[in-house]
């Protein structure tokens, strides 16, 4: 009896599930393994809309390694403290800033949720793209309008290659560009 039930379920999955799965995949209804739109909650609700949008702080003020390293780098707390040791903040934000200051004083790093995740086996270099005058927004989207950061692009290989292929970008397209 049990075997029959299992058999029926498997058959159902194969007959209905699989074709719809393939349909979804091939028609861009489903992007498997990519995380476009991923918007996790952060331990401190830092707002790019406020800092980058309203206050117009340059991206590179916090993401210091963008021009020299593969990683843009998430700022260490001492960068936050450059301002937050002095400036006044809105009443409702005060507990969060206190949390930040506490962490800094206790030398305890904040564990941020990683938003942008490249597929495995890919090497990406921020410095190279910044050097080619790419704007942050071209990949990260309207970051200055994001109260909570989400993944704007799907960061899939097709997405990378589309841009690399444009003649005006004069970018390499060999496998070794990203995979090594």
């Amino acid at each position, binding site marked *: 009896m049990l075997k029959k039930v299992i058999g029926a379920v498997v058959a159902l999955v194969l007959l209905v599930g699989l074709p719809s799965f393939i349909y979804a995949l091939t028609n861009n209804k489903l992007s498997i393994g990519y995380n476009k739109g991923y918007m996790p909650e952060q331990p401190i609700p830092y707002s790019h809309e406020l800092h980058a949008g309203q206050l117009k702080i340059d991206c590179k003020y916090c993401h210091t390694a963008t021009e020299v*390293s593969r990683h843009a780098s998430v700022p260490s*707390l001492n960068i936050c403290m450059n301002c937050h040791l002095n400036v006044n903040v809105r009443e409702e934000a005060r507990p969060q800033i206190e949390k930040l200051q506490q962490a800094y004083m206790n030398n305890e*790093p904040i564990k941020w*949720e990683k938003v942008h*995740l490249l597929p495995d*086996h890919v090497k990406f270099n921020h410095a190279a793209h910044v050097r080619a005058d790419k704007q942050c927004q071209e990949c990260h989207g309207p970051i200055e309008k994001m109260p909570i950061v989400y993944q704007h692009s799907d960061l899939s290989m097709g997405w990378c290659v589309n841009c690399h292929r444009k003649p005006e970008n004069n970018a390499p397209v*060999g*496998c070794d560009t990203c*995979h*090594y």
Partner: protein
Amino acid sequence: MQTRKDTDTTLNQEKAGSPKYWQSLEQWRQDPEFIKMAEKEFVSSPLSSDEGKDGWARREFLKLMGASLALTSFGCIRRPAQKIVPYAKRPEEIVPGIANYYSSSFVDGDEVFGLIVKTREGRPIKVDGNPDFPLNKGAVSARAVSHILSLYDPDRLTTPKKNLLNKERTNRDTVSVTYEDLDKAVVEALNAGKVGVLSKPVTGPSGRALLNEFKNKFKTTNYYFNDHTQGVEEKAQQEAYGSAVTPRYEIDKADFILSLGADFLGAHQSSTAYTKQFSSRRSPGEDMNKLTVVESLLSLTGSNADERYTVAPGEELNFVMALIYSLSQSGQARINSQVKDIATQFKAFYGQHKEAVDSVVSDLVKAKGKSLVLTGGLNTQHEQALQLHLAVQYLNNVLGNDGKTVKYRNTRTGSWGEVDSLSQLAKDIESGKIETLIVNDVNVVYQLSSDHPLQSAIRGLKNVVYVGDRIDETGQVAHYVIPVDHPLETWNDHEPFDGLYMIQQPTIRPLYDSRSFEQSMIQWMTLDGATPRYAGDESLWFEYVQNYWKSNITRGSFDKAWTEVLQNGYYDSSASARDNNLPSRNFNESALRGIKPVSSKESLVLYKTIGLRDGNLANVAWLQEFPDPVTKICWDNYLVVSPKYAESQKLKQGQMVEIKVAGKQVTVPVHVQPGVHEKAVGLAVGYGRSAAGKVADGVGVNAFKLAKFDGKEMIAAGLDYELKATKQSVPLASVQDHHSMEGRQIVVEATLDQFMKKPSSGIHKHKVFSMWSKHKYPGHKWAMTIDLSKCTGCSACMISCQSENNIPVVGKKYILQGREMHWIRVDRYYTGEPENPGVVYQPIACMHCDNAPCETVCPVIATSHTDEGLNQMTYNRCVGTRYCANNCPYKVRRFNWFDYTEIRKPTEMALNPEVTVRARGVMEKCTFCYHKIRGAKEQAKQDGRTLVDGDVKTACQEACPADAIVFGDMNDPDSKISKSLGNDRTYGLIEEVNAQPNLKFLSKIRNTKKLKNDHAGNSGGHH
């Protein structure tokens, strides 16, 4: 067609008799088993029945694969949540993704390295040589590179421990103690007096000063131990010249080098620096040096010899004396009558070996004042070791080498141990002079024979405090064990030569609750109310080092000088003094009295291997899987016997034999080794650890046990033994017979004379036609050459590559199945007769062929050609068909049969984040250090310049002590690689298949009259 004909000739040649170049005795004999194996592409298949035993039956494997596939298909709509944890306070010098480099140093027994340590985000990941340091000049040994893995050794001790020993002094239980309790107990014992300190050599001026202060404070007696050959050379110098120095040998100034058992390119002192010096004179031409080796076993040095003679163990002395006899007879050197009389005893030996002795004498005389005679090492540590050293130094003296190639000023300083220091310690313990012993990182219980009196004496002591990185064999008999900082975790300084100071800079905070020996001494002194002279406010060892340098070494502004020292890694105040020629000293001939001929007898010789040496790094898996350059066997020690001896005793490869020396017995497998004297059998030390950790324990047998205590010292060579064959046999994990070149001529050799007449001697250029349209290489095109004349086979490149490229270790079982993962291997070919063959080494990595055979067969285009001439692997495309490995004529592709990435913590910290860690089922191979090319390009762009020659250095090239490897852009006509490719000696491997390899070789030129393979007097080569 030319190609066809070539192949035919080779085949015919093989059929006609033994091949000219061979890799194993099985191949020499054309053993049917060997032929069967050589014909197979892969040594093992996934379907082999053996798999099931390991729980990896293929069916099981597919089931697991199926399950994980299902998981990945449906499970990954939700991303894996990951965290980003930036610093709270980022140190100024650390930028995520950017490597930092620090100068440091490494002392390996009696070898000192200046290092550049690469760190990423605060963790050291790679060790390279410091190119400016006068000793190793950028070169490293396999052991120095492995230094990084010993830092992350999971078996390191993490906290101080107390052993609860029972009456028999075996450990009942080990408990943790606090430093507070431990220090209290130690200070109490120190105040009770009768304290001995047994230390490894203290090589730094600060350490020596501190140890002296400690000695005066607590009235300790100090003993030093380095290895069993310690002090012999000094003692010989003392007797001959009246001052006990360890001379500096200037190999690069010698036109002719005679080594009597000294493995100066392998496991001898300073062998990396010596390799550098030796190979600097190996470019063929007028300036090329010549090396003759006289030995009983086949050492790495012997295998690099231009001429080599074998003698029975101990007969090295006879050989030197026969040389002196011959010189005295011909009057080619001034030899006084007293010595003449002694040498006359060796007339008979001279008569038997007239040809060899005369040939060496003529070379020595030709290079008077520019020759060098060397001896030493464990394999010469027989009963007449002192006489051998004396005779050798006498020979150097009468040939005018003293003061020229043998320097006796600005030599090694410090306390390196005297001939009988350990037996003295044993005596002092027995007489009650010592009740408490502090052992600083010397594993005496492992390294001493079981009949050495210290073995029982140390177990009878009231207090033993052991300072070491694990509870090893000696740690087990100690009451307290203090975990010591790894050298990469602590400050120190060294003085390898008088006036040459170097700094050991930590590159990471101590991973565990460990403390350096020096910090312990400062702690104990301050606890007892004393203030060490150079100690700072916080009583730190670092302050002590700094203050010592401030008061004694640097001049002028200290801050500036200190920064400079940290940048350079050393401070040299004796460079010109070391370079000057010195006057020859007067040799006290009466020291030679008592030299008698050594009788030729069958005996056992213990020797050190280049990988494990005395076994202190035995728990480093890279070194266990490091094939010995000569035998090509890893994961074991074995009794090395000559083919003749094996035949007479009916011994087979891998057969277990019982070796008995004076009642002590071990059971080891036999390895039949060409080039070994028929009266010698050899056994490597460094194996058979019982308390080193998970990797080393139980691998091989402890050969130190077999050494003989003669009342003063340990005798390691010329040991009488009994051999009993057993019926068992074990397979030896040799990497040699896989990678067979199928009888094709791969290495090209010629003599110096042939080279002088025709530089391209021996190289046969093939006429090939190509069906391929050529690739275009508009920008760079990367290529490499390896000079076989320079390469000594030391295999440092292998480990450097392993460290750089995250190459896994697979273990003995899979080595036996031919699944080793090394991206660069060093093939070893014998030429000539098995009694005393010639040896050629040839490092082989991916050739990055223009017409790469692997690229055309990959069904998923996982391996492709870049426009810079690289043959590239895209790991995530690879589905593991292994077609590419099948089609590779050079057998350089490696397959991940299993997931080797599950590494015991914290070893994963040694991984290089710039190189992908490969998963199961993926093919991999040498990338020409592609990530380094990218890194260099990135850096050049950052600096706003174009890439220049020398910007990119591959890991193997950086490590190579022989400077045999050249890498660069062949599209740049002025680059070193372009010049090297244009050399007449340059040739490609198996060029007839038209793969157009971009790794080329420079032929091996030997400074000798006749090559070993020269049966018919032709010039080597293909026909």
